[in-house]
């Protein structure tokens, strides 16, 4: 198994006659387009609902194209706690992402470029942990953080630090970056060492730039997954002021439900950062998922 794609052409189902073959192909394309449209309905619905006025939202039957158009729902949904929720989400997801990328690259580097039996054991220790469902150790994890809080005398529960701590060392990240390290030639490292660079300098200056591609995929994926996280913040973020947007939306679903106009706008705003990231960087996401197929 190498990280390079195997030199095999994509499978091309051979067709009998070129002309006759076009018909089913176009039919498939049309069908695929229809399926894609059906899949897009929820997004369309959310989009038009977010710019409708309350009156039109309650209209029976619902309108397929907004007769009224208002952007007033957005600032109204934003006011109150929502801005704070978004900030918390960005800190939680952003901080976790930066840390995961750093630790995973460093560990991947040590595992491959300074191989040892300890490293091999460590790797199996890491991979087997990826099998354990988070919900099964959720409570003891919380208790461990409580303990740390008591012993060190610093607040951990209900802080950003507490939210980020479980993700500092991440099996998926280590797996991904370890794979990437196989592509880094040893000669470069030897050259750097002969020039007197320390091991960390070699890692930061020479190795990291070479695995940027994988690091970018890891960053984007972990940002998306952390931003999406509900279960852990639900337990560790106890004050409203610490809620990320996922917890905020889930806990205030009752309030928002009474005000449909606000709720649509809020849901759309919560999706927006991910939609923007996806639009510009989806190449990395799709590659990262397709090559690893592991959720972290």
């Amino acid at each position, binding site marked *: *198994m*190498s990280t390079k794609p195997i030199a*095999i052409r994509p*499978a091309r*189902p*051979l067709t*009998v006659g070129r002309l006759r073959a076009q018909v*089913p192909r176009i039919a498939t394309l049309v069908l*695929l387009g229809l*399926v*894609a449209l059906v*899949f897009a309905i*929820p*997004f369309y*619905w*959310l989009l038009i609902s977010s710019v409708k006025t309350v009156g039109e939202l309650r*209209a029976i*039957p619902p309108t397929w194209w907004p007769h009224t158009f208002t952007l007033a729902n957005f600032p109204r949904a934003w006011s109150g706690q929502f801005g704070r929720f978004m900030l918390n989400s960005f800190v939680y997801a952003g901080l976790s992402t930066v840390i995961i990328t750093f630790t995973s690259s460093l*560990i991947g580097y*040590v595992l*491959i470029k300074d191989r*040892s*039996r*300890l*490293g091999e054991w*460590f790797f199996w*220790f890491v991979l087997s942990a990826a*099998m354990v*469902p*988070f*919900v*099964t*150790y*959720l*409570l003891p994890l919380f*208790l*461990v953080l409580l303990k740390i809080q008591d012993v060190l005398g610093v607040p951990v529960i209900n802080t950003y630090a507490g939210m980020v701590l*479980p993700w500092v*060392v991440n099996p998926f990240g280590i797996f991904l970056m370890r*794979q990437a390290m*196989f592509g*880094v*030639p040893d000669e470069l490292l030897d050259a750097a060492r002969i020039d007197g660079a320390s*091991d960390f300098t070699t890692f930061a200056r020479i190795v990291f730039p070479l695995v940027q591609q994988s690091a970018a995929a890891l960053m984007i994926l972990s940002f998306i997954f952390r931003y*999406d996280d*509900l*279960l852990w913040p*639900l*337990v560790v973020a106890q004050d409203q002021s610490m809620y990320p947007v*996922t917890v905020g939306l889930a806990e205030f679903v009752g309030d928002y*439900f009474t005000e449909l106009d606000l709720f649509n706008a809020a849901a759309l705003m*919560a*999706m927006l950062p*991910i*939609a923007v990231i996806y639009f510009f960087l*989806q190449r990395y*996401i799709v590659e990262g*998922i*397709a*090559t690893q197929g592991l959720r972290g």
Partner: protein
Amino acid sequence: MATAAPRAATSGLPLFPKRPLGRIVLPVAGVFFFVMIWLPVLETFYLSLFHKEPGEFYFIGLTNYARMFGDELWRKSLSVTITFALMDVPAAVASGLVVALMLNTIKRTGVRAIFTASFFFAYVVPLVAVALVWRFMYLPGPTGLFNTLLGLVGVNPIPWLNSEEWALRSVVILRVWKQTGYLALLFLAGLQSIPAVLYEAAAVDGAAPWHRFRHVTIPLLMPTMAFVVIIATLGAFLTFTEIYVMTQAEGVGSTRGGPNYSTHVMAYYIYTQAISFQHEGFGSAAAVIFFLITVCIAYVQFRFLRARHEY
């Protein structure tokens, strides 16, 4: 470019990393990892043997387990989880496979990438937001989108999340929608790795498209299928967010998973017992059993599907 083989023999390796960086990084990471994952896992097993409620803590052996197996709600949540997985996995895998097969017929990589990306988008957007929007679309009254759509084709309104019969199915439909792009992507990677030579050889031998599909695509897709089914099954068993966000509040303390516990899945049961009600020992026992169940599923499926595709 000389690169070390990923599966080099470990026997010739030194016990510790040679350079100081590795000697610092590995132990520190190992300790962190132990404290954040393995220690809590061990503690789950440990706590499951204790009566642990706020202010009370004493050893009770396997009593938690006995109580749990006798708990009607636990048995209900086990059956709900299994029912859920039995609906969710085949539907999502089939949907992903069909979309992947269609995507695979597109020869222009650019067009294929656009379609793949548009299906995959649903998987990427935050689940909480999506589940909320769907909850809104499932509204049983005439303002709900789905019932309006059904009305257009002359189907009677469905009570969706408000009925015991439909609530779980409603969650399944959302999950199929959300996962299709992801599973299709995994299938597509598998389909693309089937050598074109095999199709050509089959065509030369006069195999019809269906036969090529049956005797080339399916057998060679089995390893991918195994992987996808495992991922989908574990995903179904771990379902929590959708239940938390979409389903009706139920009874005292307003736990969700309604109506009448028809969507009270195992992950949610553990959460309510261990976190909401602070039955910490009892909740841990439920977590241990859940952990064992998920490990067994992964193991059995892996063995079964492995055996099937050795041809």
